[in-house]
């Protein structure tokens, strides 16, 4: 190839590169900006790009017909290519919505939030009494529920549900009969959320047991059945004691817990945890003799365990043997074990202290006999047939 031809090619490549760069710059300018002078600038760039391509073609033309055609076609289409990109992607005002929107949103966000600490936790309201009561976790939800407006009452119901103690559940359930339909529904939604969570967990455990049963007598499957059955019994018991259910369903769940623990214990007699669950369920159901029997059936090696001692303390408490219960509390305290609230109160004060271990012992022994009130009977007698 002659020197001149080489030079022509270099010039043509340089001009082609320049044309493409100009096109890209023009397209980007139109995409990202909307001011008129930039649009004009972009147009000028397109024209220059086109002329540059023609120049490139001039230098390449002498080479061959095919190459010349390619270069000429490029020269024709490159000036169109840039605007095509620009028009395909929304231009002008709309450019802001696409390419620029994210940038703009962030700019405004920074602008607005520069003086505000967005996620700062607002702990102090400035009102000493309410701040103090909140710090002591004594903000009276009950007061709000008695006297607050609808919004506050809804908030209080949500917070009570988050606290999750059985006593809070009972408080929420009172709102099932509130004259305000909206509060009734809010109370229902809070309880239902917790109920769904528990039910799902129980269903999962059952499913795992079923799946493991299919693999039995594989020892790993048996171990899984044992573990899941123990957890299921405990979950059913804790569901029954959670305050989420009404009396009848709570009793039903406790009975299911007992049934699960009994059948699992019969299959895995060495599992002392199942015996412990049985004892606790009996105690919850008010059957203290059987609760004691279940505790006595535990192997000696586990008698000193905290969970066993707590179950024993609870049984003593329910039988109003406060001295015995306090003795266990002292022993546990001396060992540095953290005690549940009711046992701490017992340890600190008189047996009449307003504390009680979680229990359903006041519940009726079975689904109560069918004797509900007929709401209208007090007002209107039943019409004769």
């Amino acid at each position, binding site marked *: 190839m002659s020197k001149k031809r080489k030079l022509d090619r270099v010039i043509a490549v340089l001009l082609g590169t320049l044309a493409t760069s100009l096109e890209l710059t023009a397209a980007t300018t139109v995409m990202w900006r909307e001011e008129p002078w930039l649009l004009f600038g972009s147009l000028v760039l397109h024209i220059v790009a086109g002329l540059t391509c023609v120049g490139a073609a001039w230098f390449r033309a002498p080479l061959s017909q095919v190459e010349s055609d390619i270069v000429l076609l490029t020269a024709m289409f490159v000036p169109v290519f840039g605007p095509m990109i620009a028009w395909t992607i*929304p231009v002008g*005002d*709309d450019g802001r*919505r696409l390419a620029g929107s994210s940038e703009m*949103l962030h700019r*405004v*966000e920074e602008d*607005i*939030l520069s003086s505000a600490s*967005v*996620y*700062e*936790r*607002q*702990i102090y*309201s400035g009102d000493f009494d*309410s701040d103090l009561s*909140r710090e002591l976790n004594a903000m009276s*939800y009950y007061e*709000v529920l008695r006297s*607050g407006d609808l*919004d*506050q009452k*809804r*908030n209080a119901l949500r*917070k009570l549900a988050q606290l999750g103690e059985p006593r809070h559940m009972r408080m929420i*359930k009172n709102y*099932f*009969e509130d004259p305000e*339909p909206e509060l*009734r*529904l809010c109370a*229902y*939604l809070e*309880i*239902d959320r917790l109920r769904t969570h528990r*039910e799902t967990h*129980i*269903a999962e455990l*059952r499913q795992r047991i079923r799946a493991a049963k299919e693999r039995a007598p594989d020892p790993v499957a048996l171990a899984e059945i044992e573990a899941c059955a123990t957890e299921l019994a405990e979950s059913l018991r804790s569901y029954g004691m959670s305050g989420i*259910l*009404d*009396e*009848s*369903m709570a009793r*039903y769940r406790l009975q299911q817990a007992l049934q699960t623990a009994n059948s699992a214990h019969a299959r895995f007699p060495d599992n002392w945890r199942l015996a412990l669950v049985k004892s606790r369920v009996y105690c919850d159901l008010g059957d203290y003799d059987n609760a004691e029997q279940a505790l006595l059936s535990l192997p000696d090696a586990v008698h000193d365990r905290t969970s066993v001692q707590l179950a024993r303390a609870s049984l003593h408490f329910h039988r109003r043997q406060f001295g015995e219960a306090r003795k266990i509390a002292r022993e546990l305290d001396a060992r540095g074990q953290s005690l549940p609230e009711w046992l701490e109160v017992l340890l600190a004060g008189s047996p009449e202290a307003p504390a009680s271990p979680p229990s359903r012992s006041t519940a009726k022994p079975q*689904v*109560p006999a*069918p*004797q*509900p009130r*007929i*709401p*209208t*009977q007090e*007002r*209107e007698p*039943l*019409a004769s*047939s």
Partner: protein
Amino acid sequence: MLEGTYPFVAGGVSSWVHHLVTHMDDLTFAVLHVSPSKGFYGHKMAYDMPNNVLWLEEIYLHAPFTWRGLFQRRPPASLLHTFSRFIQELRVGDLSGFDDLVEELQTQEGRTKTGDLLLDKTNWATMVDELREGAPEESFLNYFWTWYYAHQPLVNVLTCPLPEARVYHTVSTGYAGALAAAASSYWERPMILTEHGIYTRERRIEIYAADWINDRPGDETIASEAPYFRRFWNRQFQMMSRICYEHASEIFTLYTDNTEEQIRDGASPDKIRVIPNGIDVNRFDLVFDERQARPPNERFTIGFIGRVCPIKDVRTFISAMRLVVEHLPDARIRVLGPWDEDPEYAEECMRFARALELDDNLVFEGRVAVDRALPALDLVVLTSISEAQPLVILEAGAAGIPLVTTEVGCCRELLEGRTPEDRSLGPGGLITPIASPGETARAVLLLAGDPQLRRQMGANLRARVKRYYDQGDMVHAYRMVYESHIVLEELPWQESASSSAS
């Protein structure tokens, strides 16, 4: 104008609409249904369209993000200004700009795209100002998308073509209500509203429970009001209800308790009237006779009639039935209702029933013809957490079946009577609190154990339904309402529909 109901979803409101339309076969109807998005309900309709429905159109709340085409102009300045003014005024509860906005939007005949209107510079400034003033501490990105998605459905509804009608009737406030208000304002024709359940209340509950609304963390005090974005949505729905209430010539509801809430939400007490739901009582005479002919020693059968969905709280029903079966191991329990509205929940309920070992007693039968199912039932139970005036009570009542229902909507009114005269008929069933399986079970067992009481309550309820809840009265009342508002002239869409039919 309908939203999330007839003809795509089966239920109480849908049945009510269907009754009304089919029983006024001398009138012609255009049905505009507001759906969440295209294809949301599929193409399957839950009802056969009556012949007098000449036009059915779906309007979508959420359309894909669109902006104007390449060679189209920005929306006219006057429209942008009107819209901006409208949303500014909406913030302070002033609805006076609504009519102007509808006029401007309709004049555009669909040329204005929602994106163009909402995201124009003019509104951008309004939106930013609103946040600066209202909640400067909230995340702007969060606010931007909340603002956009709160206004987009309303604009979509207002930009759709509005058919000319003699009278507009909406069965809820909300988007359908706004649509009806727009049509009424644009064509200067009267609009009436029948509210079964209170729309704003239902939305408030939904917003309360929604997990898709991002609250700013840290706002921990119980004394504080609801988080900003929840208040934002509540206000939006409240304003739409007010637009509908203000434009309605008359407002109807099914029972008295609803009126208080409507007034609280901005409805004028002078416009409100109660027209109770009604059923074709005579249709159930045959059912009643069939029930009477049932052998007394047949298995005791309890029915749950309704959609299997969370609002009916089917899980509480199943729990209650577990307790019932402890005492009545032979009881037969039938869940009669479609489960296509929330298949996941239905599946969960079925699993729950299996877990409670109710396989031998409880059957999910799906959707059935009520008058075919009723003769075999001894008792109907309703455990809903929210209702207006359930048709199932009227239907079971007309067949002489007593009910155990939760204390929702006007269930107490239906079972025990509204006026002293009505109450003198005696109770038609027992009322229990919501989400209380124990109470429900006790009530069921009481009625199961006392056939005489059951018969008596069934007879009381039947008498009440016959006297106060006849569909003929309801249809007649609405006919009077329509006639008082109708302007007699042929409308363009009726002409074209008639010619295409011929």
